[in-house]
């Protein structure tokens, strides 16, 4: 049953992601709510749920992005023609990796305090985006470098998620309580 809630949550998270424009004063950061959901699942549910949210979230996010396009080589740089190649699901790997990492180490964290949720939201998002950026650079075959602007943009997304993660936790907890899944959430 919880997986249905996860699907709905992923749907609305991605709907927000594609509707909200980049935030200028946060260095052009966009929302990345799938990160929050992965953190929540890693801290609250089973390994199956971590896989489910990471893979479904990552794959659908890539489908909604130009991630599935590969557009560079020296010839295409001149004539501006790109070839397309699938990279569908590429974003799922960082989500999956950090989701599993959180799941297997969740005993180390207190789940409830807001501060912990905020720090997890900010820290894990920063790491996920850093890995995602690195993978994206390789997939696009562009030079890999970490300029100040890139780091600041990742920092901007992390700040957003720092604020949003506690809300995601309380919202998803209340949803699972309404669905009678409270014990399941606490048990994990």
């Amino acid at each position, binding site marked *: 049953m919880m997986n249905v809630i996860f699907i709905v949550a992923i*749907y609305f998270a*991605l*709907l927000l*992601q*594609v*509707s*909200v*424009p*980049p*935030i*200028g004063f946060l260095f*052009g*950061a*966009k929302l*990345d709510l799938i990160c929050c959901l992965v953190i929540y699942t890693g801290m609250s549910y089973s*390994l199956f749920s971590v*896989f489910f949210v990471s*893979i479904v979230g990552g*794959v659908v*996010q*890539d*489908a*909604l*992005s*130009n*991630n*599935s*396009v590969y*557009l*560079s080589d020296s010839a*295409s*740089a*001149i*004539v*501006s*023609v*790109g070839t*397309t*190649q*699938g*990279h*569908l*699901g*590429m*974003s*799922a*790997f960082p989500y*999956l990796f950090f989701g599993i990492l959180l799941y297997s180490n969740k005993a180390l964290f207190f789940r409830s305090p807001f501060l912990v949720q905020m720090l997890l939201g900010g820290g894990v998002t920063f790491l996920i*985006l850093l890995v*995602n*950026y690195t993978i*994206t650079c390789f997939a*696009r075959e*562009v030079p890999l470098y970490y*300029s100040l*602007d*890139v780091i600041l*943009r*990742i920092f901007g*997304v992390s700040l957003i998620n720092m604020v949003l993660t506690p809300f995601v936790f309380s919202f998803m907890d209340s949803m699972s309580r309404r669905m009678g899944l409270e014990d399941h959430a606490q048990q994990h």
Partner: protein
Amino acid sequence: MKFKHIPYVIVVVFLALLVVAPERYTHPISNFLVKGFTPVCNLITTVKIRFFRISDNLKSLESISEDNQKMRKELAKLRTENDRLKELEQENNKLKQMLGFVQNSAYDYVAARVIARDSSNWWQGLHLDVGLKHNRRLGPNMAVVTEDGLVGKTTIIFEDHCKMVLIVDENCKVSTTIKESREQGIVMGMREATEAAPILKMTYISRKAEILHGQTVVTSGLGSVFPPNIPIGSITEIRTASKAGSLGLYREALIKPVVDLSNLETVFIVVGRK
């Protein structure tokens, strides 16, 4: 490894296969997944546009009262001007039709509405509400423009919508010419650029080229993706050959796009010559 973990390993292997699969295999999956979002994105865009129109018209009671008093005073004056303005309006409409962007162009366009943005932080792209079912001539690598200038190019065309990359994206490269000096180069987006803070880089400019701040950069038409002479932007900074990181072989210029990419609502896809 425990046996209970084997299904997870299989799932990861399948995911890896999906990532490396060619686009012709992943296209139907993408299409299927995105289909669920397109109608809702369309709806959100429609509601958003209507909301902003209404909110523009809404004012607080105080300001309405003040406006009312001012308007009463101005009413008499405006009445006398009314007839003259009506004539001007008619004339203006005629001029608009005459100078209309689409009618006057040598190209065929498909008008499209922006319905969503790229979901990733590392791509600068948009989703448009037209697809193959609206126009069979649509395809990837077609120029996307507004009446002001170049916006980007299409990447993937689905049945009922399509994706495009903006010119500020690092992977969107355009063969260009400086209008004043006819100097050629390649314009590309910068990784640091976003819709909110757009900036472009023109590279491969000859060391001896005479380039100045404020000069206009337009498409050159080479490569046959972008029609020639579409405005891209104006030069804001010129980098010397040594600073361009090119071993002194060429120079670079930074360009401010002529199109306001953060407020795009309607764009035109160039589908071919008339």
